[in-house]
């Protein structure tokens, strides 16, 4: 039958690989450019460490959200989750709980929030965009209620270490978490059975279900982990700022989703790469940092970030349709 030829798996791999490689080239070029134009401050430890710390919580949330998005779902509640976690951490510390216990409780709260999203989406069948926009407001609203809308100090040796500690006295701890999370998600998505199921579910949920894959379970667990990593992000942010405030993570969902989409993940599911998300996060991160230290007016920063996102995703589409034509 006359059908439009879709790119073959190998061609697609080339495109995917090509996209990721191009992203890393863009990253290196930008980094070199910024180092030169922004010399000497951009390359200084004084700039790079805070920049990477800030990127770390965006990155870990993005890595796990990439998995959610490859199954064809989305989680908008991550920003609200971070806000609530921040307040919760400060609140529990204020009640005199030890730091370690607070960390565990915060992660449990994240798991609960993720499980709730997963339940609404997989068991009740609410569209995940709607469900998680809803819970985004609910989580943040609970944060405001709990804190009375005020910022609370969150100082504790354990909490401090998460955002401001150094492993072996040199590597900032948030960056350690960042690397660990990316390594885990990379292995899961590229080498594991679980990752294969995620890609299968995203590519064709019906065929996956009719091949005996428990589609709901996979989506549920992804939401669960998305909740946990968002709370982990909340812990880092709280530690970095030493305060728990309900506004923490406001608007973060869009930054995270932009990074993921920039990295080549399709909103429709089935397509995406952890390395792409890594590159996307770093590109948007250093761009934001550079423009800020160059004292570019914040409004312009937004224009540039948005324009880059649209530009890059447009080139994906063009490359994809060219590859189809060549086939």
């Amino acid at each position: 039958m006359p059908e439009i030829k879709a790119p073959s798996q190998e061609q697609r791999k080339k495109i995917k690989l090509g996209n990721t490689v191009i992203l890393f080239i863009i990253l290196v070029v930008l980094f070199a450019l910024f180092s030169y134009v922004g010399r000497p401050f951009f390359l200084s430890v004084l700039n790079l460490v805070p920049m990477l710390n800030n990127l770390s919580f965006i990155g870990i949330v993005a890595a796990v959200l990439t998995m959610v998005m490859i199954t064809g779902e989305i989680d908008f509640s991550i920003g609200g989750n971070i806000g609530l976690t921040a307040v919760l951490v400060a609140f529990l510390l204020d009640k005199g709980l030890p730091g370690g216990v607070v960390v565990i409780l915060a992660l449990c709260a994240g798991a609960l929030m993720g499980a709730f999203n997963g339940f609404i989406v997989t068991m009740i069948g609410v569209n995940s965009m709607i469900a998680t926009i809803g819970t985004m407001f609910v989580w943040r609203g609970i944060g405001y209620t709990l804190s009375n809308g005020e910022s609370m100090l969150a100082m504790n040796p354990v909490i401090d270490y998460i955002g401001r500690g150094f492993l072996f006295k040199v590597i900032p701890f948030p960056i350690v978490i960042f690397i660990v999370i990316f390594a885990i998600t990379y292995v899961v998505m590229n080498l594991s059975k679980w990752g294969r199921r995620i890609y299968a579910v995203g590519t064709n949920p019906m065929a996956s279900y009719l091949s005996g894959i428990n589609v709901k379970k996979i989506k549920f667990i992804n939401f669960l982990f998305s909740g946990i990593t968002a709370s982990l992000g909340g812990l880092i942010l709280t530690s970095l700022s030493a305060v728990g405030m309900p506004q923490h993570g406001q608007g973060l969902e869009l930054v995270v989703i932009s990074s993921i989409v920039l990295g080549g993940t399709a909103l429709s599911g089935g397509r995406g790469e952890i390395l792409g998300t890594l590159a996307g996060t770093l590109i948007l991160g250093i761009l934001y940092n550079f423009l800020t230290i160059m004292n570019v007016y914040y409004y312009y920063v937004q224009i540039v970030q948005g324009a880059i996102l649209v530009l890059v995703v447009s080139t994906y589409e063009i490359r994809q349709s060219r590859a189809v034509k060549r086939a």
Partner: protein
Amino acid sequence: MSDNNGIILKMENITKTFPGVVALDDVSMDLYKGEVLGILGENGAGKSTLIKILAGNYIKDSGSIFVDGKKFEISSPSEAMASGIRVIYQELNTLINLTVTENIFVGEQLVKGPFKIVDWKAMNKRAVEILNELNVDIDPNAIIGNLSVSEKQVVEIAKAISKEAKILVMDEPTAALSEEETQSLFKIINTLKSKGVSIIYISHRLKEIFEITDRVVVLRDGKKVGLRKTTETDASELVNLMVGRDIREMYPKRELVIGKVVMEVKNLTAEGFSGISLTLKKGEILGIFGLLGSGRTSLVKALFGANKIKSGEILVNNKKVEIKSPGIARDEKIGLVPLDRKVEGLALSMGVKENITLANIEGLGNGFLIKKQLENKKAQNWVNEMGIKTPSINQEVNSLSGGNQQKVVIAKWLESGSEIIILNEPTRGIDVGSKIEIYKLMQNLCEKGSSIIMISSELPEILSIADRILVMSKGKLTAQYLRTEATEEKLLQSACI
């Protein structure tokens, strides 16, 4: 040129080929004004291709089409419309959230005034006129989604004649209709006929062909093999033409080696069917025949855990099992080759390899990780053993032919160790050569001790392949035949109860 003996549509030497298949081979036919011309043929005979060429969805490779003596290329749907040809497809194209009137005038609303405001009044009036012309009682303001299938079909017909159709092509119009609804459709067809509309009526139901057509063309393997006046032919002649002498050779014969019962279904009821009992023996091919809406797909989905069982029980190897999900079915060594392989069977943009191992991801290694070499080896084995034609195991399944895609779906279940394989219309949309390969494959499986349940609506196929045939109608089992005692007439009769 318009006299030409009342010929409204003339097709001359139409040929259409697809890679590997000649779908239409030098087919010519005439359609007279006010005539109902039946086109009869098995699935894959070229009926759909012919329709799609008339509708402008496919472009013919060669040949000419004349409407009212004027030559039309028909290279697009709009050109087909302009020539006065209207096609009513099996899958109705109604927009279910709109009203009857809106559907009739979709795309070509009547407008008034300089600003081209939609003229609802005129449209409603015209809709009533058209529906009256057809002698049907449908409220023009009714929402399509609330109408029955036959009423939707009438709306499609109304839509077609609202645009001055000279030629109406109807593709299996009664596939989803009851006997009564069929009769009222025939009344409408007669009304149209009396108004000078010519109709091409496509069906594989002989009874209807005799009831409604004036002449009948028989297609087989893309060729026109006969043209008869309906009054001057009979069923057996048409069947012979349709099926051809060599048909039985298409289906490999085999010795029956049937063993113990591997699956027993007792009084099973679920959405779409009720009170079904059946047994499946080792090495057997059990056929299930039924028309659209008979509940056959619901039944196999229930056996596979994808349709919730309300009552009754299933025993696999004499052990009662609760098949609550396809995952459990797989663990019980049951596999389903679904009706629509592209939607339900394959992850199209993934590779042959990933699709073959899709139902057995757990078997790709002992721990958490996939052993890539193991997976490659498994996939390559199935590709070799089943003769799946693909450049490599990494090729995206989307680019494979229908027959090879179907083999990938079957390989998926063999890889997961299935011993009971349920196939729903296994050769749908597959060319003749691949069909034979699929049949041979099924027989090989049975010889190796698997058991097969095959749903098919192709009579010659089910009559030749199945060892035993169950017939379903309206959600019930209505008959059971051994291959030796089954005939087309018996099956059709039991299916229409």
